């Protein structure tokens, strides 16, 4: 039947299929569909840079225009992955430089990007338009200068939360005066001051600019200069939002903000001085996204602010908002979809603010569209979790961090098994879950049996025995990423569910009870997995096999064991005698 359609027709049909999973399904129908599909796939997502090699990618998909690649495991964000582990992007850029001269977009997350890689990007792709570096590291502002100087068609430069070796702000001046295609610029993570006049001229000559996120070094007094030149902005991130209160500065700023009629998202607000907050009041009714997670203002100011943001869909805020502020949020922001509450003082036991489980319960009651939660707090109860679950069965992402490890239900002193059990029971669309507090093996039984759509699970300081891990690995049909730290999970559960690991993207286990012997067995028996042991005490081969490994990272791959491992990473091959 496939032969009755000319290839061009099929190709045209496939051009409407954009989701990766649909494309993958199309390619499995038959050989000819596989061939047609691979020649017309324009966008590729590589969830784990070691799951496949650059050569396999370029060989299979010759006409790619947009690539997204992820490197280090998520726990790298919290310093659990030692420096030098890997995730270097250069081999990818090098392969794509040859294979994809028409490449337009590169999006990287948690990868090591060198200045050489950036320079290679800037000189290899004449149509290059989009560079997004999310939580990346390894490059300096020199690399950014190459991008600025050479990418004539660049539209988007987004540095997200990357760690940049910030030598100076001079790189921005490398953008040629003839370059006018800028749509999105995010330099919020940079420390150095960029030349303000260069920035001003850049904004002035970019009529398509929609997103501008400044860094802290841009002072408040200068914001109106930029805003007046870009009234079409949709997303804006301020620099340090503090200054002595001066009426002329205030009115300039307020006037500039009110001129931006399309503004939907605001961020930045470092060092926020409450006196200047009213300058944004006129924009509030149009805002759908507000990131105040660097703003150290207290709940009364926050209440006044959020009460005006009737159309807010996403709020990121510090726990200064307190329960009282969350009550106001629940009352005013009926369209709220995502809430993230970060801790202002995470390293003390005693609470410094009055933020408890009550605030989250209030939001779950008042905001019918709430689907994504990240919440740091110091106390939680099963009753609250059950209430949240019942109120919001439409939750898709629920990440709760009770700051003290193994904290029980503060009312009953029981484990929080029942509470989290209610979450997975009621929230049938839940895709991402992070656990905390005192938890026994029981909660994993609930998760294993009821978390049918769960794709990512993060576990810390939880469980009693291998049974906990066994519940998860033998259930959770949709599980793709599992990350575990400081849990008494060991060999037995892992080995009994070894096949499960091939259905997942990756498993991370650190400070658990997995022996080197079990790792060897897994590596030997499952050649399509890379079993990496990360151990900074020296070679695990020099110790008895029953010794526990420090960290373990297992992922499926078609590329075989990687060849760029640092000295503290060991991979297990079929022939475990070799390294």
């Amino acid at each position, binding site marked *: 039947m496939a032969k009755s359609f000319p290839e061009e027709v099929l190709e045209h049909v496939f051009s409407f299929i954009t989701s990766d999973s649909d494309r993958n399904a199309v390619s499995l129908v038959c050989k000819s569909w596989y061939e047609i599909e691979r020649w017309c796939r324009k966008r590729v997502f590589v969830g784990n840079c070691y799951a496949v090699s650059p050569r396999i990618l370029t060989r299979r998909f010759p006409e790619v225009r947009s690539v997204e690649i992820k490197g280090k495991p998520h*726990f790298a964000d919290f*310093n659990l992955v030692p420096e030098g582990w890997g995730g270097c992007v250069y081999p990818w850029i090098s392969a794509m430089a040859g294979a994809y001269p028409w490449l337009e977009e590169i999006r990287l997350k948690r990868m090591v990007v060198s200045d050489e890689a950036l320079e290679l990007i800037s000189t290899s792709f004449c149509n290059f338009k989009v560079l997004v570096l999310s939580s990346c590291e390894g490059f300096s502002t020199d690399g950014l200068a190459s991008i600025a100087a050479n990418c004539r068609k660049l539209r988007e430069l987004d540095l997200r939360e990357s760690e940049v070796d910030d030598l100076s702000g001079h790189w921005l001046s490398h953008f040629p005066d003839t370059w006018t295609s800028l749509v999105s610029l995010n330099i919020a993570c940079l420390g150095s001051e960029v030349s303000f006049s260069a920035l001003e001229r850049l904004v002035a000559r970019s009529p398509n600019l929609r997103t501008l996120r400044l860094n802290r070094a841009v002072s408040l007094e200068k914001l109106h200069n930029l805003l007046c030149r870009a009234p079409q902005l949709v997303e804006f991130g301020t620099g340090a939002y503090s200054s002595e209160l001066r009426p002329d500065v205030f009115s300039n700023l307020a006037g500039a903000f009110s001129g931006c009629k399309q503004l939907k998202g605001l961020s930045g607000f470092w060092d926020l001085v409450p006196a200047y907050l009213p300058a944004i009041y006129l924009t509030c009714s149009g805002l759908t996204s507000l990131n105040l997670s660097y703003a150290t203002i207290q709940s009364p100011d926050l209440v006044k602010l959020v009460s005006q943001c009737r159309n807010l869909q996403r709020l990121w805020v510090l726990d200064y908002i307190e329960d009282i502020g969350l009550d106001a949020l629940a009352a005013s922001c009926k369209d709220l979809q995502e809430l993230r509450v970060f801790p*202002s003082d995470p390293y*003390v*036991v005693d609470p410094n603010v009055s933020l408890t489980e009550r605030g989250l319960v209030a939001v779950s009651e008042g905001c019918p569209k709430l689907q994504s939660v990240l919440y740091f707090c110091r106390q939680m109860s099963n009753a609250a979790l059950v209430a949240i679950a019942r109120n919001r069965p439409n939750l898709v992402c629920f990440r709760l961090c009770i700051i003290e490890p193994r*904290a029980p239900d503060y009312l009953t002193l029981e484990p929080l098994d029942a509470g989290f059990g209610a979450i997975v029971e009621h929230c049938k669309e839940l895709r991402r879950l992070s656990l905390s507090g005192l938890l026994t093996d029981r909660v994993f039984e609930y998760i294993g049996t009821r978390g049918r759509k769960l794709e990512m699970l*993060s576990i810390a300081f939880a469980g009693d025995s291998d049974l906990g891990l066994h519940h998860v690995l033998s259930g959770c049909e949709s599980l793709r990423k599992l990350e575990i730290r400081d849990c008494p999970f060991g*060999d037995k559960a892992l080995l009994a569910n070894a096949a499960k690991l091939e259905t997942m993207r990756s498993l991370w286990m650190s400070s658990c009870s997995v022996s080197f012997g079990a790792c060897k067995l897994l590596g030997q028996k499952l050649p399509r997995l890379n079993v990496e042991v990360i151990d900074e005490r020296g070679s695990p081969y020099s110790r008895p096999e029953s010794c526990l490994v420090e960290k373990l990272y297992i992922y499926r791959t078609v590329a075989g064991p990687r060849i760029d491992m640092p000295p503290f990473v060991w991979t297990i091959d079929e022939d475990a005698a070799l390294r």
Partner: protein
Amino acid sequence: MELQLGLALPSVPFSKGFDLNSCGYEAKEVLGGFDSILDCNVEKSSEEKKRSFDEAFDVQSVQVPETLPLLVWNQQTEHNYPENSSSSITRSDEEEEEDGIIGWPPIKYRRKKLCHGSPISDANCWTVGNGESGGGGDGGHSRGPNPTYVKVKMEGVTIARKVDLSLHHSYQTLTHTLVGMFGRCQEDVKAYKLTYQDNDGDWLLAGDVPWGTFVRSVQRLKVLNNGD
């Protein structure tokens, strides 16, 4: 279908055949004394094995096996989790002096640096057990996975501190942290300059060489007032 990027694998019935605990003799040899504790009988059928698997999983029998001859390596003693207890992680005495739990609470590095707590809680890490703010008097004392401590003095301050260079990637972040560590307002970073003694013993102004070179050669740091 050959495995390509789609990575669509046939589903495997988990109860059969893939329990590597039953890998015959090899498993026994490899895992040492494991089965003596877990009373798994590898000759049983998969059905029975499943039952005995469940039976084996009562809490007592699945602790970190006592047969593990690991006592030479102290770190492992931390993994002896007491059953059903809500007590904090036991830490060996020498570690109490040092820092707390790495990577907890799970906050990205960037946010950690900007945490606005009291000066005492500048600790940047979670310490367990004493109920006080972490770190005691030694502010800014967080630890990366490959800690590289150097001593740092500030002009006019008698007591020196230590800083872990492995947590930093640029002179900017280092200077900010150092200024904060000595209790100065971090907005005044421009009022200070950072100098270091390299492995030749010379005192140099920080910032001239690439960060990596700097980290490899720095022996100690000194923060001076930017007088001129």
